[in-house]
């Protein structure tokens, strides 16, 4: 089991266990974490799963693909050059065992 912590703009926190293979987006959508919709089902074409990864968890994440790069340029909340990622591209087990992310203001 991996662990994902979502920090909301208002200060509240959701912390979830996620099976390997679950993405940051899927776990949020299934468990009802506010601010993450996942409208394209995880295909990196909607940006409704934008999150800011906390610095200490950036290591080990996969490189940003061409598709993710395009979507990160269209996010509702401003992009953070180091920390912005699409939650659907971050997979428990493959990329992290523990991760903490901030949900962008405008999505929350």
């Amino acid at each position, binding site marked *: 089991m991996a662990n994902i912590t979502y920090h909301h703009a208002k200060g509240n926190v959701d912390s979830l266990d996620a099976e390997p293979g679950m993405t940051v987006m899927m776990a949020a959508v*299934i468990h009802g974490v506010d601010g993450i919709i996942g409208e394209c089902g995880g295909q990196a074409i909607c940006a409704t799963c934008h999150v800011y990864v906390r610095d200490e968890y950036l290591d080990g994440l996969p490189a940003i693909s*061409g598709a993710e790069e395009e979507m990160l340029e269209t996010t509702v909340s401003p992009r953070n050059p180091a920390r912005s990622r699409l939650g659907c591209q971050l997979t428990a087990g493959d990329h992290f065992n523990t991760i903490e992310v901030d949900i962008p203001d405008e999505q929350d």
Partner: protein
Amino acid sequence: MNAITTPDNVVVVGNGQAGIQLVDSLRKEGYTGAITLIGEETHHPYQRPPLSKDYLAAGKDPVPLPLRPEKFFTTHDVDARLGVRVTSIDRTARTATLDDGTTLAYSTLVLATGAANRELAVPGADLAGIHGLRTLTDAQALHARLDTVRSVVVIGAGFIGLEFAAAARARGLDVTVLEYADRPMGRALTPVMSGFFADAHGRLGVTLRLGEGIASFDGDNGHVTAAVSTTGHRYPTDLVLVGVGVTPRTELAAAAGLDVDNGIVVDGSLRTSDPNIYALGDCASFPNTHAGTRTRLESVQNATDQARHAAAAILASRPGKEPGSGTGVESGSMPGSEPAGGTGAELGGYADLPWFWSNQGPLRLQIAGLVAPGDQTVLRGNPAEEKFSVFCFRNGTLTAVESVNQPADHMAARRLLAAGLPLTPEQAADPDFDLKAYSKQQPATV
């Protein structure tokens, strides 16, 4: 009928992509009246696109992706009823009747009934082992069977048929696709792009038989054993997936006397021929400014953008305002991110740019705009590398862009088409022309 005395109650028929977004948008726009959402499927509302893609991958039972979390109905104060069907509408009394015997009064009724798979009428079509793919129940049945079969035949080389074919190939199954027309996905793609996908599926190991429709199925003990094509070829198989398109769910609307013509006919506000009834998503035939004609589209973009627009239109048209809700919100003002723009009475007709995606194995197809027969086409990039786009022009004007594994072209195309920024065929074909920078000259409206 007395509009003023009717309490606010928006009744939504269908809890798919369009119905759920509509409910979400109504609340976001400040509507505080009652909402009743009715869906005949028993599952919590879920996303359909993954069903023909990730959901079919080998492995343990996949988890469907919900459209919204389960608590959504509580947090958004929605009276959600699952597993019940609306069986009739009385437009004079403004009521909807459900198959559990309940009758609901509405001030506004929204039809978001989606579409149903077209079924084959050939001999043997009712044998076991012949599947369709529209619902989670369909996908669960397929996922369970794919572990035990060795070969599959797909009827119809449309998006769902080919996504399924690619998913089945990824599991190592023998896959044959029968398509009556002379090219795959011919209704939606340019001949160039169809040709590319025909070849690409060949490289994936799919046997694509063009110009061959289905004539009949053979069976043994009530289970399908082979598909026989219109050219007399016989394809032994363990499982058949039928993907020959859908028909809009217009039965309720038709029975209620609303205009129906390949979909429930709506105007630019997504309103039917009855001003208290709206229709949107897969079931609605709307005046499409991008096609220059009335169309019905089947996509997530169409369902969600129409839902946002309909929510604004419903709020803008209400005779009485919400007591106690914020200023301006209830008159239908939309957030800045919404391209349809406009407030209250000025709310323009629905005109959002259509876009679509389909993932077939390693191929990510994205389409911005609508492809029409006879468009001039220009290539950008290299099909041999499976990374390229086809730019479509009509009378020198850019109309649509199809991209394979080129998300930057797709996003640039959406910006260009939405802003109406001119592009020449020469610019599109020139690899040194910076399409992305050019498309960003205008404020992004996608």
